[in-house]
């Protein structure tokens, strides 16, 4: 099970649940599982989040694999100027 | 109310043009003579991106009216290189990476050329104050000053 941490307001939308273990095998799968449990998250997951898998940050990487012992952070998307 | 008819010398060539009363020299250069090397950054003489030489004097083309230049001599960035030979200032700007986006570069080159024509050995402070009328937002001025001082040294060697 990957340990998934929701950062900032995402945790609020998940009913103040900041950490959860999920059997996600990819970023896409993770978003599906999160949306199922917390429908309020769906729009935000689509709107733009970054995902850090074992310390590596990914943005817009639905197909990126998540391992069984991975630590995953879901955080707001980062842009720039 | 018709346009004014004028002739002047631009970069050594005689030119003939029509302009409205309210058009600036910068408008004439860019829109009528198609010399777009001089840039409009502010149209109020604060940024120096339109720096040109008028009868040997450094001016902001946006502060000179088109009607004022009849019979006068104008030099712009387009006249700075001699054929394929870049002016030492142009070459030093390239060598020292003294430009990033490059929008202010024509103005700086014209202004720096005016400086070196009257001050062959300027100090860093003199360079900075002479160029204080030219805004650059990208470089922080460091490499521009370095390039100007290096060009001055090269030109002193003759």
């Amino acid at each position: 099970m990957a340990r998934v941490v929701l950062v900032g307001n995402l945790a609020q939308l998940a009913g103040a649940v900041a950490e959860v273990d999920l059997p996600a095998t990819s970023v896409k799968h993770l978003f599906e599982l999160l949306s199922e449990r917390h429908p309020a998250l769906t729009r935000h997951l689509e709107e733009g989040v970054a995902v850090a898998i074992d310390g590596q940050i990914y943005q817009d990487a639905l197909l990126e694999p998540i391992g069984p012992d991975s630590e995953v952070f879901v955080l707001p998307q980062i842009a720039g100027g | 109310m018709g346009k004014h008819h004028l002739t002047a010398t631009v970069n050594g060539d005689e030119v003939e043009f029509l302009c409205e009363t309210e058009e600036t020299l910068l408008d004439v250069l860019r829109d009528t003579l198609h010399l777009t090397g001089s840039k409009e950054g502010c149209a109020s003489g604060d940024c120096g991106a339109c720096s040109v030489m008028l009868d040997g004097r450094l001016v902001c083309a946006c502060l000179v009216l088109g009607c004022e230049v009849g019979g006068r001599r104008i030099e712009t960035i387009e006249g700075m290189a001699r054929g394929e030979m870049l002016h030492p200032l142009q070459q030093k700007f390239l060598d020292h990476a003294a430009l990033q986006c490059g929008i202010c570069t024509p103005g700086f080159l014209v202004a720096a050329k005016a400086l070196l024509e009257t001050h062959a050995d300027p100090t860093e402070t003199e360079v900075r104050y002479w160029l204080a009328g030219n805004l650059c937002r990208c470089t922080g001025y460091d490499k521009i000053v370095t390039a100007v001082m290096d060009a001055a040294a090269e030109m002193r060697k003759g």
Partner: protein
Amino acid sequence: MTMADTMTAPHGSSRTYVGTRTIRPDGVDKVTGRARFGADFNLAGQLVGRVLRSPHAHARILSIDVSRAAALPGVKAIVTRDDFPDQSSEFVPAGEMMMNYRDVVRNVMAREKALYEGHAVAAVAATSAAIARRALKLIEVRYEVLPHVIDVVEAMRPDAPLLHDDLYTAGVEPRPEKPSNVAKRIEIAQGDIEAGFHKAEVIIEREFRTAPVHQGYIEPHAALASVSEDGSAELWCSTQGHFIVRAHCARLLGMDIARIRVTASEIGGGFGGKTVVYLEPLAIALSKKANRPVKMVMSREEVFKSSGPTSGATVRVKLGATRDGRFTAAFAELKYQAGAFQGSPVQPGVMCAFAPYDIEHVKVIGYDVVSNRPKVAAYRAPGAPISEYAVESVVDELAKTLDIDPIDLRMQNAAREGTKAAYGPKFGPIGFEETLNAIKKTEHWNAPLRKWQGRGVASGFWFNIGGETCVSLTVNEDGTVSLVAGTPDIGGLRASLAMVAADELGVPYEKVRPIIGDTGSVGFNFLTGGSRSAFSGAMAVVEAAKQIKSDLCARAAKLWDVKLDEVEFERGHVKPLGAAADKVEPMSVADFAKVAGKTGGPIGGNGRINAQGAGPGFGTHLVDLEVDPETGRVTILRYTVAQDAGRAIHPSYVEGQMQGGAVQGIGWALNEEYVYGTDGKLQNAGFLDYRMPVASDVPMIDAIVVEVPNPRHPYGVRGVGEVPIVPPLGAVANAMEQATGIRFTELPMSPPRVLQALKERGLHKV
């Protein structure tokens, strides 16, 4: 060992150019005036487009009557809100970003209300600038002027004038019953903030204020649109992202994306301010109506009033530490102006605030607040300079209170590889400590100071991003290489990409000619921003080169009648290995080019990636300044920047980013601010009174490039463009404190403010 020997580079690279100071290939055109920026394009028969803008900071638009303007000879088209279909309030993909187009369409052309002075209300296209100006005067707009609010704290009050009656604060439970100007509340937290402060032996708490500042690019926004009778559009514009411009225009005007071809002109500065659209949709709409090309250029006044300055803000920071200097708890509350529509950079401001430090207990709250000033656009490391200014000021005060050297205090608490960032994930290899050490080792750090002089140090962080990037490499028949990238070159990108391509393919740098292709000539590219263009572009070049190298190896194997594992590409040649080496000579890229057609066809590669693995950037700045107690004027005496670039592809352009960002930060700290009258109108909409640094305001900026390679990049590159604007605000404020004994908590520290502070403490000299 040379740099080339220790340099991270893909196997087989020539290691000749990356890390050296080549002459940029687009340089000659820029020093001769030949290069074409946004306003330098013209088409036969073009019309001049101009925008009518609201003179009021807040007003309902009751009616717009264009009839008299339309009747003026020479006026060929007019557009208003009626020409832009309304957009639903949902976030939709625009390129890679999610945009709320309901807000975008209203910012481009006001609908129900004018929400700031300078808000576009109508636009005309006419045969001359004079006629266009007269036409604007003939447009009759009836406004119902409303009370306005600009300051962020004022805008948050429950009785403040309301900008949007359908804006309810997101992020609070339960959802508020009444709308307000607070669009969003966000929060990040780790540990137990109360327990953390309980453990602290010293606590410093301060509140700071910053004013809106503009990106200050010297080139105003410019666009030239030409729409054909079949509805296809060509657009030339000055932009950081022509694919994004295409996406926005397609959406706003209901056009197929493929029907719009956008060419990015050379761009005269952007810094984030040219990542959105203002004139482009207007120019296309006008051209479509007029059936002629329409050229639109903003005046300097319009740039200040009608583009996207960054947030003014209020920031409260509370930092607790033990007596020996260990941070135990950190709290901050950020209130950022978003401008007329929601979307300030408070989110990254929140995430960056304490990012350089390893702190167990952290809580940062942020508020995104609308008010009657232009909609905020990105400005170099958006949000971070503001929050990190506040934090670095408090860290400095803590260092003084604890009598600990300010660099040592930062070192003691520095984030390192493996540190869990306050915003979530653990850091990989990072170079923060290296920048602190680099500064400490300088002669600058120990140089003597006189009375009224002060020295300040501050650090900064920015995430950096990757993103969708396409680069195509084509080997021409004579062995030269054409490179087409798709991210506008703001300051040296073409040089960097050509250097990488030259090393990857083992060809001379002069034989690689890079261009920035239009949207029809290269695949989708996210915009230039986020410190991504060299990072992602280099990655895409490596990918494209890999395809070429693999193709050439396959051709060689067939030509030489050997197996694929008996050939290898190294330093510009395909070499036979093992037994084959005795039988055939290696072939260069140019050799293959000569026989390309005969061995399968033209040689090329396409790097099409969504670059991941951007490495976070850290910098530490050191500044000496002198205060004139008579005038309040501050002179910057000396400035040193140390920043981790991962790997500098072109050291001069990396230094250039460091120097340029530092000077923008100096301007932000000392002079730049938007000054509004009580009528909500901008009083300093020009370069004379919006005072940016000039050459005589600053000394040489010493740039120390630190290199802690980013393991996720083939060349170890980290983005460098944004980090350098983050530390200067804190560094200058900290130096001011040392010079005057006064902790300035409001920016800018302009002469009137400095004088006032000196007077209040009896320090003013007459």
